[in-house]
């Protein structure tokens, strides 16, 4: 208590007129008081709101720093970058910072994993809060050391009088274990757009010592020694194991459930609510057996899906649900085409794709006494908790969401559905329930990336200049269900218990800076094939619509270059408007020693193995990418092997170069998998891609030999996202390299061996 008094006296004395100090003091009374509490006394934690500094940063008694991050790391190391940013602004060693994320009780909702904005947006309040914390600590130190803040120096969490190292005080001594109780200015937005700002000005890039270094990940050891938990490893006392029972035909509802058919399985019980059907048992294996054994009579439904071979024709002929034909429109496109000396046109096709996460969804929900806790691997745990609250008819603050690393997440995969399934089961049986899908659910019933067709036209004048350009997509909606499971409508369990589908009805256009004088980009979408609990419902999957749209747009850029006898790199550089984009394209061309060429290296025909090289470029939310693929095509087997990728990658300031490189590698390999292998198969009644045989992905034999990464660091540009952007141009580069190698333009993805063989005749 004496400390409080001392500080008050000191502060009052200061304010009364102890000279120069007065002007530097702007510490709120609460902040000045809090750290002065006797050690061990509990400071009052302010509410978890974005306008509280304590919502983002805490300094423990031992001087360790905890950063509370309301976005997520899914294994690409975003949390490391956040730790670096906080360490940088606070002037503490990186090793002293722990980043807490994914618990709704401890982090404000910054939107979770979303749109590669972990650093781009999520880092902003953390940076501001850490800078503000440092400012407050400096002012507290000024009081303690009786020296104006401007004569103080901070290093490793210790504030000393400049030039008098012995006169010092540590962060721990100033505030360790207590709360700041300092307000931030909050823009009143939650989620991705949340911004909180303090009075402090964050550092300038030239002052950075921690940001820009390759700090290592701290989750890897736990993963390779098996000492850290995945969501699948979480157990709760009294927990039962659950499994869902999905209909054999999409859209069918259970009309008769023979509970006696699982009577012989110990503890097995049926949960049937609305059209939701599941089982629980004490032992997991018993739950698996019960779900397999349960006899169910299903309603008869008309086959909801067209023949797979007619998918693209279905898209072509189905009346439009919503269109934005001129999402971007420059000049007079129609007139320009009319006056064109030459017009070319092509159509590209992309299938449904599955997240097919390494493991199917797992979640645990404990619903009791008007409260609930959900443990989830979803990348948006705040949204998961909100959705669980709604389906359980609870208030948002009655449900706590706790994220635990799941089996991979690259958007709205099945994790969001699993949490709702577990909620229904837990409520029904009055016990905590852990649910884990089987493989056929992970692939067959997860939300899908939408199938699409893209029609592109280019018009040239007599000199071969592009005077008209029109890019048009017709496709399924990008979000039949939202990328956030914050409402039951967006989940299978919700739709099966009476919540209607609420599709978002939008698509996207390419992101590039080609300056064509008359340029139009637009889209139209068609209704979902099945309105309720569809295994082909669409939602966001890594770089939503990026791969398909830029497969088409960047393939067509090469087609236009060929039409006017131009080299693909030269043609791009002629039309790219933004200087940074041109710089990125030039960087990759230079790195590979691009040799200008017109037309493919090889003519169609022949059976041997041929090689080719192709380029593609794209932007994504401020990031710019250009990539060159070097592929080998075995014309006999149809195998396409991208032996080498070279990418030039620009995303503003680079926080962690090694982390960025590994993130880019993963993006490129996954995007290659999608371009070469991935196509959700279905028949008239069901999705028939139900495992890794029926939904193959890239394996080690098909992985590239080399990925060469050129990072373009722009320290004075705020960091942009990198978790998805390099996914975007990969398909186009492979397509263009395939054309170079074979002389055949293949406009339908994926480039499976069968499709390639058929295309090469």
């Amino acid at each position, binding site marked *: 208590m004496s400390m409080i008094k001392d500080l008050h006296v000191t502060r009052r004395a200061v304010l009364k007129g102890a000279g120069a100090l007065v002007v530097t003091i702007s510490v709120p009374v609460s902040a000045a008081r809090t750290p002065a509490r006797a050690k061990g006394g509990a400071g009052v934690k302010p509410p978890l709101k974005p306008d509280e500094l304590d919502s983002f940063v805490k300094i423990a008694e031992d001087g360790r720093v905890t950063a509370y991050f309301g976005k997520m790391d899914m*294994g690409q190391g975003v949390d490391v970058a956040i730790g670096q940013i906080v360490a940088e602004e606070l002037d503490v060693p990186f090793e002293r910072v722990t980043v807490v994320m994914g618990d709704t009780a401890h982090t404000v909702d910054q939107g979770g994993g979303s749109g590669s904005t972990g650093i781009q947006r999520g880092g902003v309040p953390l940076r501001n809060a850490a800078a503000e914390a440092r400012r407050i600590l400096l002012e507290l130190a000024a009081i303690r050391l009786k020296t104006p803040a401007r004569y103080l120096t901070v290093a490793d969490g210790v504030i000393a009088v400049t030039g008098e190292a012995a006169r010092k005080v540590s962060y721990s001594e100033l505030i360790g274990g207590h709360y700041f109780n300092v307000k931030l200015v909050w823009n009143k937005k939650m989620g991705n757009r949340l911004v909180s700002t303090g009075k402090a000005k964050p550092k300038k890039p030239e002052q950075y010592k921690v940001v820009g270094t390759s700090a290592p990940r701290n989750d890897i050891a736990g993963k390779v020694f098996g000492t850290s938990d995945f969501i699948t490893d979480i157990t709760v006392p009294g927990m039962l194991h659950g499994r869902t029972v999905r209909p054999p035909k999409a859209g069918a509802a259970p009309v008769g459930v023979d509970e006696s058919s699982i009577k012989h399985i110990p503890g097995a019980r049926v949960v049937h609510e609305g059209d939701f059907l599941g089982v629980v048992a004490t032992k997991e294996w018993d739950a698996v057996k019960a779900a397999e054994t349960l006899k169910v009579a299903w309603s008869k439904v008309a086959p909801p899906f067209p023949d797979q071979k007619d998918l693209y024709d279905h898209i072509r002929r189905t009346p439009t649900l919503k269109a934005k034909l001129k999402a971007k429109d420059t000049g007079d496109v129609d007139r320009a085409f009319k006056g064109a000396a030459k017009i070319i046109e092509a159509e590209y096709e992309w299938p449904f794709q599955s997240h097919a996460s390494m493991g199917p969804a797992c979640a645990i929900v404990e619903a009791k006494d008007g409260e609930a806790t959900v443990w989830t691997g979803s990348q948006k745990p705040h949204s998961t908790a909100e959705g669980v609250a709604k389906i359980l008819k609870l208030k948002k603050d009655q449900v706590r969401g706790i994220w635990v690393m799941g089996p991979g997440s690259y958007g709205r995969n099945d994790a969001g559905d699993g949490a709702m399934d577990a909620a229904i089961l837990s409520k029904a049986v009055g016990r905590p329930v852990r649910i884990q899908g089987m493989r056929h659910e992970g692939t067959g019933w997860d939300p899908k990336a939408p199938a699409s067709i893209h029609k592109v036209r280019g018009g040239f004048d007599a000199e071969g200049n592009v005077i008209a350009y029109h890019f048009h997509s017709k496709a399924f909606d990008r979000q039949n269900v939202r990328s956030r499971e914050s409402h039951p409508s967006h989940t299978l369990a919700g739709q099966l218990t009476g919540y209607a589908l609420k599709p978002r009805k939008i698509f996207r256009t390419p992101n590039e800076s080609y300056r064509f004088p008359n340029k139009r980009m637009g889209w139209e979408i068609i209704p979902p094939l099945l309105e309720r609990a569809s295994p082909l419902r669409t939602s966001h999957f890594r770089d939503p619509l990026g791969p398909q749209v830029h497969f088409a747009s960047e393939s067509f850029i090469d087609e236009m270059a060929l039409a006017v006898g131009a080299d693909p790199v030269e043609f791009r550089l002629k039309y790219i408007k933004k200087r940074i984009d041109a710089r990125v394209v030039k960087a990759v061309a230079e790195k590979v020693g691009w040799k200008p060429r017109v037309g493919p290296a090889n003519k169609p025909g022949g059976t041997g193995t041929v090689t080719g090289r192709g380029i593609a470029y794209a932007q994504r939310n401020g990031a710019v990418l250009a990539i060159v693929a070097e592929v080998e095509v075995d014309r006999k087997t149809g195998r396409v092997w991208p032996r080498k990728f070279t990418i030039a990658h620009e995303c503003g300031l680079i926080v962690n170069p090694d982390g960025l490189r590994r993130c880019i590698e*993963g993006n490129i390999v996954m995007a290659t998998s999608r371009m070469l292998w991935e196509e959700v198969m279905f028949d008239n009644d069901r999705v028939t891609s139900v495992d890794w045989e029926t939904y193959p992905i890239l394996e080690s034999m098909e992985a590239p030999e080399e990925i060469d990464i050129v990072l373009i660091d722009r320290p004075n540009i705020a960091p942009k996202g990198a978790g998805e952007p390099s996914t975007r141009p990969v398909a186009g580069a492979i397509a263009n390299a395939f054309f170079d190698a074979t002389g055949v333009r293949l406009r339908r993805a994926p480039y499976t061996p069968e499709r390639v063989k058929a295309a090469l005749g």
Partner: protein
Amino acid sequence: MAERISLNVNGVSHDLEVDPDMPLLYALRNDLGLSNPHFGCGLAQCGACTVHMNGEAIRSCVTPVSAAKGARITTLAGLGTPEKPHPMQQALIDEQAPQCGYCMNGWIMTAAAFLEKNRRPSDGQIRKALAGLKCRCGTHMGIIRAVKRAAKAMG
């Protein structure tokens, strides 16, 4: 239905009362609390559940627990620890390879068994030995680098 089955896992004997047809994976995870092998597919198509049985990498999700009677089972925890890491584990840390990490058990157990037989593998041999394993995050490049690094360390 349940049967008394004795399992030797990581050098320790355990007596279990379990359905003999239940996959070994469930016995390891739920009955013995050894959660390193993961459920990925239940179909021997991804490798996340891999353990060693008498030194061979096997898929525990399709191996009936009864088939493990009398065998020497090793899980990831038995392969190496933070204090005494297996070279493959150390190599993955050095390469900072895993992302979500859910599949890592399979890659480590498969690579470790492979490296016991081939200490100087070529790039092609490594890729072939790892065929059939899945990694959805696309960390193949880092994993292959790690296998090469581990091979060097193992001499």
